[in-house]
């Protein structure tokens, strides 16, 4: 389980302090699909970056099974937390296959043969093995996203973070993603996402946090009884 405790984050901008996260606390249960929703600028992406260890400027604690993620080794970090960014961020200087193989060799110390066979297996599952020699700029947005997810899965991360996963997808790819998220949860992965796509969030999420001006103001847990539910989430979902 990932637990966030009293997270505060502020930036200095033109001699003014801008609060990005204000006393944010949350719990992400294993095997759940947890979503963070809210208006633009609410702090959703920043929060995901904090969980992914990309932003360590916050105060407070993010604990993974009781251990502070700031103290994780490189290997611990990637085996626990993976992230698929909004624009997928595939390495432009590498082919689709190399995007998946290189991190396994470079970070986990896999041999090229072992890494390649694992990557090909996952690419085949995603129906994109035929694109293995293409460059990221030669494939569509939906295909790029599949590659980015495959790359994250190659590292066996337990928690996978998605920043606006449906922002550039057609309805068919969105359906694929919905099914994929549920399949991943079924095999023990935990999905954390932030999105503006309310119908998608409503369909896939087990738990939804609503953020406003850097604060979590509402939470809806579909599996258990609602922890806090001021009605803001329901209002936002039907918008």
């Amino acid at each position, binding site marked *: 389980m990932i637990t966030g405790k009293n997270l505060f984050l502020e930036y200095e901008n033109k001699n003014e302090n801008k609060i990005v996260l204000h006393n944010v606390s949350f719990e992400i249960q294993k095997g759940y699909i947890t979503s963070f929703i809210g208006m633009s600028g609410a702090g959703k992406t920043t929060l995901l*970056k904090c969980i*992914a*260890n*990309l932003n360590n400027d916050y105060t407070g604690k993010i604990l993974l099974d009781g251990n502070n993620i700031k103290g994780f080794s*490189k*290997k611990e*970090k*990637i085996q626990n*937390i*993976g*992230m698929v*960014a909004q*624009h997928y*961020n*595939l*390495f*432009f*200087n590498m082919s689709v296959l190399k995007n998946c193989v*290189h*991190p396994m060799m*470079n*970070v*986990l110390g896999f041999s090229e043969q072992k890494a390649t066979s694992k990557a090909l297996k996952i690419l085949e599952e995603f129906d994109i093995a035929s694109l293995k020699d293409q460059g990221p700029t030669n494939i569509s947005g939906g295909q790029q996203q599949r590659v980015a997810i495959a*790359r994250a899965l190659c*590292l066996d991360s337990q928690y996978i973070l998605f920043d606006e996963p449906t922002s550039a997808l057609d309805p068919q790819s969105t359906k694929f993603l919905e099914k994929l998220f549920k399949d991943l949860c079924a095999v023990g992965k935990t999905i954390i996402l932030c999105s503006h796509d309310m119908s998608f969030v409503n369909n896939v999420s087990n738990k939804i946090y609503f953020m406003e001006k850097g604060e979590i103001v509402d939470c809806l847990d579909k599996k258990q009884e609602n922890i806090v539910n001021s009605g803001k989430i329901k209002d936002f979902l039907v918008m």
Partner: protein
Amino acid sequence: MFKSINLIYKSIPFFLKGVSMTLQAAFFAMLIGLSIGTILGILNCKKLKLKKLQKFINAYVLVIRGTPVFLQILIAYYVLPDFLGINLPPFVAGVFALGCNSIAYVSEIVKCGINSIPEGQWDASYVLGYGSFSTLKSVILPQMLKNVLPAITNELSALVKETSLLSTIGLLELTKVGTNIIARELDPITIYLSIGFLYFLITTTISFMAKKFEGALQS
């Protein structure tokens, strides 16, 4: 016409010596500029927050870009030996001055090249467990190289042309060889046009090779 052709033919051995010296000076200055300039450019990129070192690098770049290369050559040849207490031969002083000049320009090209790579590429690397060095080596620099190659080619071509300024400190490079021939033969048109053509040939060859390299990188 016949006189001019005869003069060019007679001057070929001198031109070749001049070209050789020009290429040597340009090569060593390039070596200094590319190697140290690339390192300084990397250290000066915004992602590596080495504030004190970056201030020093920026100050160096400011001074070099704010003064004429001709003056830098004169300082290297006439002033620097006084400080070091040794006599620098024209070749060493010239290469040193051009190399130091090139460091500043190459470092700025590399810095801007790295800064132009989308932030997401760094984020993706860090999420995947790459450290700063691995990120630079495997992800950022290969992409940066493709972006900065045209600017680096310009810098190298400029460097070859700037070697002509070394004639003022007595280095027998192409321009100096040319002026020596003119002093003897009194035919500036033929000689200046000839050495101009030779400079053109060298810089065009550099551009052609850079294009080939760029093509190889693209594929």
